[in-house]
């Protein structure tokens, strides 16, 4: 059924614009202000803008075609409003009601104005109904898309947040993993680690899995992939922070970690890393003591002071 009667609609509503606005706002206000999300002034502003846009387009042509180019501005306005509401935390229903709540005031006006033309009234009611369904659906679609965008952005942020690579010492990197490792995260973790290896020229990286709640075959495989990739670049990997339960699980699952150095704690792994890079940790006091002894005796004594 063709949607016609745009100019007639514009004529009817143009005469009652203020009344229409007031009634609509009363309806909408109940929804929006209950949540305290938008002020009345802003709401009124949005409404009058929308109604005037709608009237302009309706009066321009008798055919009502929401997909047409002349509706571009209305679509842009709705998209804007919908995206804004998605960010403000409106529900989809509340957002769609922005459009749908105008339907009843419009039909009321129409009935009053066209009481003597039942055929016309029926036609125009259909036009309004079909048009507002499209407007409402469009609003919901944009709302959904904006929500989706928010979710994607959050996922991205979460990924970046959860994979820091820290430098423990010259040539030693640590990668504290928190949370479950899935394929997507492994990819990010691997890329971050390898990039950091290139930047710092690190010879050893410690992957600490204290914060990984469970290790199944898939997670283990991802870990081994990371280790293999780092090895290909010329850096050794140590896996640390393996909790007792996880050690048991790994063995029960038959995961082969035999060609990877594993340590129970990050501290133990760090000591190994220092040794491999030719460094060692000594007590500051002991060193001083040795230096003083050496100076007093006037000779170099590399053995312990005692």
């Amino acid at each position, binding site marked *: 059924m063709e949607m016609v009667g745009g100019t007639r609609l514009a004529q009817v509503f143009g005469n009652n614009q203020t009344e229409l606005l007031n009634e609509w706002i009363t309806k909408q206000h109940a929804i929006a202000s209950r949540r305290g999300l938008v002020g009345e002034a802003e709401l009124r502003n949005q409404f009058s803008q929308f109604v005037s846009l709608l009237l302009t387009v309706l009066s321009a042509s008798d055919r009502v075609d929401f997909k047409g180019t002349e509706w571009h501005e209305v679509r842009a306005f709705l998209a804007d409003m919908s995206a804004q509401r998605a960010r403000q935390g409106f529900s989809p229903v509340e957002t769609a009601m922005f459009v749908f709540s105008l339907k009843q005031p419009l039909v009321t006006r129409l009935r009053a104005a066209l009481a003597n033309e039942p055929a016309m009234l029926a036609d125009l009611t259909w036009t309004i109904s079909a048009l507002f369904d499209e407007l409402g659906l469009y609003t919901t679609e944009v709302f959904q898309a904006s929500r989706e965008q928010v979710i994607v952005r959050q996922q991205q942020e979460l990924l970046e947040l959860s994979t820091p690579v820290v430098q423990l010492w010259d040539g030693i990197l640590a990668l504290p993993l928190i949370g479950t490792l899935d394929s997507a995260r492994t990819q990010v973790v691997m890329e971050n680690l*390898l*990039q950091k*290896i*290139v930047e710092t020229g690190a010879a050893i990286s410690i992957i600490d899995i204290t914060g990984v709640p469970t290790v199944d075959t898939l997670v283990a495989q991802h870990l081994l992939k990371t280790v293999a990739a*780092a090895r290909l*670049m010329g850096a050794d990997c140590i896996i640390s922070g393996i909790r007792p339960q996880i050690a048991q699980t790994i063995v029960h699952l038959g995961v082969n970690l035999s060609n990877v150095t594993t340590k129970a704690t990050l501290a133990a792994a760090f000591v190994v890393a220092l040794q491999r890079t030719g460094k060692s940790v000594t007590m500051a006091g002991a060193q001083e003591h040795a230096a003083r002894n050496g100076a007093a005796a006037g000779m170099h004594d590399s053995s312990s002071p005692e």
Partner: protein
Amino acid sequence: MDRIPILTMGKLLLVTIQVDMHDRLALTLQDDLTSRIVKDGANGVLIDISSLDVVDSFIGRMIGNTAAMARVLDAQTVVVGMQPSVAITLVELGLTLSGVRTALNVEKGMALLTGGGAA
């Protein structure tokens, strides 16, 4: 036809791959390298792939094979300077080059070869 140059540094051979590797080039390199190892009596080979940013399974396998061939001819092989993206690709392809020694850059690779293999 293109050839990848092989430089001699004492008893070491240095191969720097700076062009896009294609299959024929890779096979030519294998030929050249093995004959040079025999001719010069080299005991170490350093393959620098830092300029290589695309690999496929063939090139990956060829790098592994070249290293294995050099080992048969009694020359240590170190692959240096692999790009992160290349490393990830090889791992995803299931090629971990387990028999090949690796180093981050030429300097470290040299240290690995001249340090008597103790690293």
